[in-house]
């Protein structure tokens, strides 16, 4: 047992520690691509904002409130993507027992929880002028709120378990089970009659949007995706630095 930052952490042996902690601290590649991704996402968000707020037309029924779609739908899309990456990281950890997969899952889940909160907040703000209410227990909204609770619990579980190996295993199980909610959210509007509108895009079907609306939405989808990749890269970099820090503290503790 070793105490790091007040938490008792179990390491089987120094060799095991060295095997499990990531040795690679040279994160230059993330940094170099990070600058490009950060600048790219900023530029795309600015373009997307212009297309959404100025260039695209108002909706016949909803008027200008439809412009909330250009941040609501991309938030939801990147939320799906973030939790899919969490699923991949969780499966990867259980399969390979390598903590780099755990770091990937945890980093993506943190961003995913933020995006889920933004999806709910923007949806609520859109619902008020269109439906007349800030909140309703619609199947899609309810299942999205459940997703938020599941992955908030995932982050809390990680915070409460100090042992990195036990934490990684427990979090991987929650990360896999939690993903079951994603297809339920996506297909809830088809399975149940609900207040929420159907999917904006469907595979193999022509979109029902105006061309300018479609272009504005696609640009914002790309912008949010690039931003997600940028944030994930930075969060992974932080996770590596923190593990390296803990490793150095461990080495110092061994010496004194």
């Amino acid at each position: 047992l070793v105490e790091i930052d007040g938490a008792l952490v179990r390491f089987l042996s120094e060799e095991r520690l060295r095997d499990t902690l990531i040795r690679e601290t040279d994160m230059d590649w993330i940094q170099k691509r990070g600058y490009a991704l950060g600048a790219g996402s900023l530029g795309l968000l600015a373009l997307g904002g212009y297309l959404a707020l100025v260039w695209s037309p108002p909706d016949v029924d909803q008027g200008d409130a439809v412009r909330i779609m250009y941040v609501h739908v991309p938030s939801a899309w990147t939320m799906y993507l973030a939790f899919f990456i969490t699923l991949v990281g969780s499966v990867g950890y259980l399969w390979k027992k390598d903590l780099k997969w755990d770091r990937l899952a945890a980093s993506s889940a943190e961003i995913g929880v933020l995006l889920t909160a933004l999806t709910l907040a923007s949806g609520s703000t859109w619902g008020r002028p269109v439906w007349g209410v800030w909140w309703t227990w619609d199947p899609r909204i309810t299942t999205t709120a459940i997703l938020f609770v599941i992955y908030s619990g995932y982050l809390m579980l990680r915070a409460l378990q100090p042992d990195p190996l036990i934490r990684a295993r427990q979090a991987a199980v929650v990360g896999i089970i939690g993903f079951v909610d994603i297809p339920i959210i996506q297909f809830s509007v088809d399975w149940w009659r609900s207040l929420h509108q159907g999917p904006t895009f469907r595979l193999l079907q022509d979109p029902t949007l105006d061309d300018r609306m479609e272009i504005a939405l696609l640009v914002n989808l790309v912008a949010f995706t690039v931003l997600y990749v940028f944030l994930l890269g930075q969060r992974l970099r932080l996770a590596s630095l923190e593990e390296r820090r803990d490793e150095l503290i461990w080495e110092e503790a061994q010496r004194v």
Partner: protein
Amino acid sequence: VSSWTYVAIAYTVVWGALAVYALLLARRVAQAKEVERRLEDTDSGAGKRASASRPYTRRPYDADRSGTAGDDRGRHAEGDGGQKEQDGAACDAPPAP
């Protein structure tokens, strides 16, 4: 209330939250890099002091605890339940003579 008010609220919340998260992340990365640098400096310094009486002046996590350079939201710190002041019992042992 016009539709534009709701549009303004939604965009402020979404863009604002993402910007704040990105800035916090950048700050945490900078702090973690600083802590790593200081720890590595201490690590290399300790090796040179090994044969002497180890005139210990500053523990690596002191920087972390003081908040001047450390990231107090580290992986293990997240799980300490607010007991950060009790940290480093293993490191708190007096230096070997």
